[in-house]
């Protein structure tokens, strides 16, 4: 059973506010990802990390930023939220578990954060 958590699950916030979406995983995976998904649409990769202090931008340009100070934690921040940021944000992890051999290619997903900016 994969253990990856996202908070909050739902967030309604006004334009211009700073927000941080939290993502944590207890599997010790080295790789983590953030996807953006609009209703009824495909997932687009916006950020990924291959390990602590490693972050890269994904295929879809995003005004958000991420950090990876600890293996298990991969928060996403929007400095000034806008209505165009309204979407669902999904976090995922994969790869070599901490202290283990081999690895998994499949990504395990959190439940998502549905963000609405008014």
């Amino acid at each position: 059973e994969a253990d990856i958590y996202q908070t909050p699950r739902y967030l309604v916030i006004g334009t211009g506010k700073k927000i941080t979406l939290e993502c944590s995983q207890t599997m010790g995976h080295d790789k983590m990802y953030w996807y953006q998904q609009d209703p009824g649409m495909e997932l687009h990769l916006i950020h990924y990390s291959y390990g602590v202090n490693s972050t890269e931008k994904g295929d879809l340009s995003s005004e958000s930023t991420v950090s990876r100070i600890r293996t298990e934690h991969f928060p996403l921040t929007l400095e000034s939220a806008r209505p165009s940021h309204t979407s669902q944000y999904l976090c995922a992890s994969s790869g070599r578990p901490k202290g283990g051999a081999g690895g998994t290619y499949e990504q395990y997903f959190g439940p998502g954060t549905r963000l609405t900016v008014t």
Partner: protein
Amino acid sequence: AQSVTQLDSQVPVFEEAPVELRCNYSSSVSVYLFWYVQYPNQGLQLLLKYLSGSTLVKGINGFEAEFNKSQTSFHLRKPSVHISDTAEYFCAVLGPRGGGNKLTFGTGTQLKVEL
């Protein structure tokens, strides 16, 4: 670069009928293939994966998929669907051979099971 095409955006089917959700991918190198399911207001759950070996892959909830290299397809099938199978299904490719660990998703197929 990889791409994934899910030919059907919606598939309505009656309960206990068989279903096939189609997925085609394009890649010049060998890839890994996945099917995920997403229930309303939830994240994605892995249904099954193809990494190597047998081209017929069995997953959870009675689903299976067949990897066809010559047709670059990875169609998902279930012989008898249940109401609880109503969800969005995403095909995804990871490649080449896991390099970069970045998934490319299709646009999804909404499976609606009716009584």
